[in-house]
């Protein structure tokens, strides 16, 4: 049962090592209820699709893993689709060639494969940091993509079905279900996996291990000289984050019962996973998950609304970079941009005009600056 603790004059609740204020606890409870209620909510409106939200959660879960690297070690992986794809393809291979039917076993296979892959890619790319690291992870991801594309045993560009056994379906608790029921049950499975995964990640981020990663991220040299074997820690974090990707990929394969290189391994998927973390707020635990749902939803809805939906996504990312660098969750938190501005607005409604004016001024200044630079480039200094 939750236990009450008083810290810094605030009442907090502690349960299984998770500590939260009353407000946070309520938000958490609401979030869990919402997750479980989504299959019912999506039935209310045609524009909401369970499969879209489900996919968003799965990619978002991979982003939660990536965030361990991004937030603490400050390493930007641009190749996380590699582990998502490895998990997905491992599931497909086990279903097709080993005839495995049990969802549990398939997922274990996905975890094992992703662990090995992350260990390998990590060992090769973690000699570097910064952009070089980003480029290396990207290149290794593309290598896997090219391999999946080129191997007819992996179905090439057509991809592979995950339809094992006589039922043509992975078995949940040894049973087959109608497609609609299967979708909902696998969704609940995803929710459970996500809750466990978030809990584990939360505990990791409260542990001494996190201190080591933070130390490495903030001052790598000093971290070595307080006795941390840096590469080994970063490698461990890389593998953990890869495992999250692998679990997500395995679930993706089980849910959709089909994997293709394009949808799981292509480098733009890696980009998606990275941007989900930032969109949701990479300094938060659940941000990447929310970023995942929002980004996939945006892409899906955008496609229905306009043929220029990439433009739409691009603009959202721009607004994010300049207006809300802390992401959705980071900005909504108390003390975030949103609440600060709202408070300001309540006090002084005319503030909007000031913001608009200052934004206009900045844009104007920038335009003049770039024009003068252009003139100098073209005609030299006058």
């Amino acid at each position, binding site marked *: 049962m939750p236990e009450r603790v008083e810290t810094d004059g605030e009442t907090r609740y502690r349960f299984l090592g998770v500590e939260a204020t009353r407000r946070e606890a309520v938000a958490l409870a609401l979030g869990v209820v919402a997750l479980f209620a989504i299959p019912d909510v999506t039935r209310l409106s045609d524009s909401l699709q369970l499969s879209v939200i489900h996919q968003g959660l799965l990619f978002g879960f991979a982003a939660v893993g990536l965030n361990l690297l991004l937030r603490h070690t400050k390493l*930007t992986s641009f190749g996380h689709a590699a582990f998502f794809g490895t998990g997905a393809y491992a599931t497909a291979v086990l279903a097709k060639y080993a005839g495995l039917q049990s969802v549990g076993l398939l997922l274990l296979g996905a975890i094992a494969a992703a662990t090995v892959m992350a260990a390998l890619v990590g060992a090769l790319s973690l000699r570097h940091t910064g*952009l070089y690291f980003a480029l290396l992870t990207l290149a290794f991801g593309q*290598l896997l993509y*090219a391999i999946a594309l080129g191997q007819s045993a992996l179905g090439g560009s057509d991809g592979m079905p995950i339809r094992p056994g006589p039922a043509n379906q992975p078995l949940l608790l040894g049973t087959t279900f109608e497609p609609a029921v299967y979708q909902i049950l696998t969704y609940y499975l995803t929710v459970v996996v996500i809750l466990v995964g978030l809990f584990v990640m939360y505990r990791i981020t409260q542990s001494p291990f996190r201190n080591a990663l933070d130390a490495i991220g903030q001052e790598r040299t000093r971290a070595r000289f307080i006795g941390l074997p840096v590469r080994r820690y970063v490698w461990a974090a890389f593998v953990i984050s890869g495992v999250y990707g692998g679990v997500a990929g395995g679930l993706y394969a089980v849910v959709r019962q089909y994997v293709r290189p394009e949808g799981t391994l292509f480098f733009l998927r890696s*980009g998606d996973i990275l941007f989900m973390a930032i969109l949701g707020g990479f300094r938060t635990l659940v941000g990447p998950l929310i970023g995942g749902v929002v980004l996939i939803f945006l892409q899906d809805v955008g496609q229905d609304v306009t043929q220029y939906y990439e433009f739409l996504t691009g603009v959202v990312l721009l607004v994010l970079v300049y207006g809300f660098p802390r992401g959705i969750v980071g900005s909504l938190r108390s003390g975030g941009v949103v609440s600060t501005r709202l408070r300001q607005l309540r006090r002084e409604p005319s503030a909007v005009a000031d913001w608009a004016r200052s934004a206009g001024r900045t844009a104007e200044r920038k335009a003049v*600056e770039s024009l003068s*630079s252009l003139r100098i480039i073209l005609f030299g200094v006058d």
Partner: protein
Amino acid sequence: MAGTLETALVQTLNGVQFGFILFMIASGLTVILGILDVLNLAHGELFSIGAYAGIGVFGFVIGVVGPPSGVLGGVVFVLAVLVSVLLTAALLLPVGTVFEALFLRAIYDRDQVYQLVLTFALLLILLDVKKFVWGNTSLRTDAVYSAINSIPTSELVGLNYPTYNVFVILVGIAVVAGLFWFFDRTKTGRIVRATAIDREMATAIGVSTDRVFTLVFALGAFLAGFAGAMAVPPTAATLGMGTNPLVLSFVVIVIGGLGSLRGAFVGALLVGVIRSWMITLYPPGEIAAPFAIMALILLVKPEGLFGTWGETA
């Protein structure tokens, strides 16, 4: 022409030609990376805008010049094509300038990951801008490729090799020479390199880093546009054409060493030629070839073939 030696030669030349196109793309990316420390994910889109815009410019200029006839006509035509390519590339200058001054400058001191998000956002936006301007279907320029091919070159030495490819190789050599000359011999080039080596020092001796950065980004865009216009005549401009060159440029940069122009040159030719042989000897390996080369080189030489920008230009 079934001579094994001749085939090997032509295959190598094919690779060299591909390598030079790759270098034109990767050089812009690596210069920006080396000096601004920014990985411009939108670089492939700039390349593709160069291809689309190039089609328009070719159409206009060649409409004025007319098809080549005779030796003089041939020379005039080749010059006209070169002028078109340069014009196209020049069109990209303001694009690069605006990118740097308007978007990038505000976030240099932020986490690097925001630069990735920003340039990716620009990639998405440019993708749809292209769709809006040039439509959903592929575009071609018909005259340039066949007209240049009608000028005899390799045939003169008994080789079956299209003149356009010879043209690409020659222009590629000129671009390489021009870039090295710019960075080694001109004052502006040296200032840029100095900035790359030590920003603070450069500022201290009165260099405006803002201006250098804008210049470098504009140069990168110029090179991308140049490459796009050079690459498009034998093929078509399509919406998705920016992706592959972008990813291949990454490979080239990793092989050559981050931000090294010389590395990009050697890397591009290496990828071009080895890929070419791979296609000949083991066709199924075509797509994976560049990445396999990269993995191999990294195992042997983890830092890439050359050091970083500035120390070895």
